[in-house]
């Protein structure tokens, strides 16, 4: 519309496009993003949902299969009690009502399920109506969290490996029948950033309950996003599109941003969005249509006759509730409490990172060994989080010793980072031995004082300005001391010595 208006005014082509872009930006501010997420969480059981086959990632294809999960005639499913327990823990952690439930068959033709149906929960899910509070204080409603079985893994074979160009497909049924809980949020999410925050927090909750290992990259957590837009202030929701193939937090954020822009442009140009399922193409950075509402599957749900209803008693529900571990919100409070006093904004961020990555127990253990919480926290949020795989299996005692050495001035911050990196790379070791090997001898208090004294005497003009209250010169003197000691001096000790001399 703006382009046509500009054209009528006789402006040049470039002016037209500039006006169009300006109008575009102005219009964006009038649009509200509305997102609901469906998160599929593979449960950390030993066996599948309805048979005794191993629930394991990465085994040789089709080695964890039996007549039940291959859908062979005459086989019958029997529900895994521990999967029910984990589903109830998830329900408790998300403040859901945990209820009597039943199973349905969801029928469709696709080779990832040899039965040609997936056993899921339909009108009577085990968990309904909860919420998840995010670290920023916002709350996202939970519609339901139900049990279902996972499907097999299909690999499309062809020149490009892309679905549409594939010549044939290969199927591995090791994953068919693995227990899942599908967590459906209400459309309460208002930005891609909030969607990422929701998944990050939900992941931490799922790990805390013992239900999930939280590994998105291995497919333990899979996310579909229902995205729509509406004008700010509108009450009715716009037409939504479901976006699939979101394999990382990054994909989730990018896909939502792209989809919102696409829908806003569509509504502005044509007035409507067509309801459809879309596929996120990570490489192209865009969503492409998969099927329209008319092509949507008619799943012909009907009650699964081979499974009787599930109605866990109050004792079992109470046990499941007690088995829920310390939730992320409580973990953040615990860390903040260890810091003593109000945390700085950086520390608030560090607490979020450390809890989201499951590193908070390491910090707590380090503090128990005498390390100041602030030092342990910053090392966990930076160095440990940077090498998460190694950090999660690091002996807490070793991490504690490094933090103590840094806190006591035996290692500078730089040296502590280097020692930690070495420990993480080696999967453990003796921090003191590594420090000695690297020549990280701490300066004794006496020799540090002598170096500081020497630096002060070498720069009398700067020293008089610093003494007169020009505090920023502390950085200059610290730099000079670091140079003189080859970086072995502890920054905090230098600052303390400078303060002492100034008084």
């Amino acid at each position, binding site marked *: 519309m703006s382009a046509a208006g500009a054209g009528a005014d006789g402006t040049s082509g470039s002016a037209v496009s500039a006006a169009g872009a300006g109008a575009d930006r102005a219009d964006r501010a009038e649009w509200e993003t509305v997102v609901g997420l469906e998160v599929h969480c593979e449960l950390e059981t030993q066996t599948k949902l309805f048979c005794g086959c191993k629930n394991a990632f990465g085994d040789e294809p089709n080695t964890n299969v039996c007549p039940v999960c291959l859908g062979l005639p005459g086989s019958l499913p029997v529900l895994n009690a521990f999967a029910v327990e984990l589903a109830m823990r998830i329900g408790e952690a998300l403040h859901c009502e945990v209820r009597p439930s039943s199973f349905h068959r969801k029928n469709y033709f696709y080779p990832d399920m040899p039965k040609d149906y997936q056993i899921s929960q339909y009108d009577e899910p085990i968990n309904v109506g909860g919420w998840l509070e995010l670290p920023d204080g916002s709350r996202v409603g939970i519609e339901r969290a139900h049990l279902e079985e996972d499907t097999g893994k299909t690999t499309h074979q062809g020149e490009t490996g892309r*679905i549409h160009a594939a010549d044939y497909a290969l199927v591995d049924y090791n994953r068919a029948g693995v227990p899942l809980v599908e967590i459906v949020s209400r459309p309460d999410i208002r930005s891609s950033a909030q969607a990422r925050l929701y998944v990050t927090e939900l992941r931490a909750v799922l790990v805390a309950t013992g239900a999930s290992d939280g590994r998105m990259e291995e497919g333990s957590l899979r996310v579909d996003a229902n995205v729509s837009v509406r004008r700010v202030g509108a009450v009715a929701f716009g037409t939504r599109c479901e976006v699939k193939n979101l394999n990382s937090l990054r994909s989730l954020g990018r896909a939502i941003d792209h989809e919102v822009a696409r829908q806003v442009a569509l509504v502005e140009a044509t007035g409507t969005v067509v309801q459809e399922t879309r596929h996120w193409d990570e490489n192209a950075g865009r969503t492409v249509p998969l099927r329209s509402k008319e092509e949507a599957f008619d799943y012909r749900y009907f009650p699964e006759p081979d499974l009787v209803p599930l109605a866990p008693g109050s004792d079992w529900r109470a046990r499941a509730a007690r088995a829920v571990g310390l939730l992320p919100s409580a973990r953040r409070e615990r860390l903040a409490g260890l810091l003593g006093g109000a945390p700085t904004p950086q520390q608030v961020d560090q607490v979020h990172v450390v809890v989201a990555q499951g590193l908070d127990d390491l910090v707590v253990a380090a503090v128990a060994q005498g390390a100041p919480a602030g030092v342990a926290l910053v090392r966990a949020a930076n160095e440990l989080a940077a090498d998460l795989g190694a950090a999660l299996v690091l002996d807490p005692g070793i991490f504690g010793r490094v933090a103590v050495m840094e806190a006591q001035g035996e290692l500078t911050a730089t040296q502590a980072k280097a020692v930690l990196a070495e420990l993480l790379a080696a999967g453990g070791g003796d921090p003191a031995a590594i420090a000695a090997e690297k020549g990280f001898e701490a300066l004794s208090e006496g020799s540090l004082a002598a170096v500081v004294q020497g630096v002060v005497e070498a720069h009398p003009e700067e020293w008089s300005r610093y003494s007169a209250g020009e505090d920023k010169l502390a950085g200059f003197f610290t730099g000079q001391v670091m140079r003189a000691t080859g970086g072995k001096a502890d920054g905090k000790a230098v600052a303390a010595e400078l303060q002492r001399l100034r008084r």
Partner: protein
Amino acid sequence: MSEPPSLGRDDVAHVAGLARLSLSEEELDMFTGQLARVIDHARDVSSLDVHDVPPTAHPLPVRNVLRTDDPCPGLDRDEVLAAAPDVEDGRFKVPRIVGEAP
């Protein structure tokens, strides 16, 4: 209770499509008649007064049939794949699939 509309030829064609059955015109006529009779028979239930009968998801008075989470051996892979029409790399080989999993 209002009577649901009786089964039409289009309904049968739709259901056949969902089940991946291709029916001839004659078959459609035949099955429409047969299915309508089956559904009418099932509809006899709606003539009963069930207002004081609680809904049930299963005819058996049984709840919570569960097993413990203990692994047990499955089938031998060679045996399993021997039953497949086609195999590659220890996996079932299936024709090109249009579209993505539902």
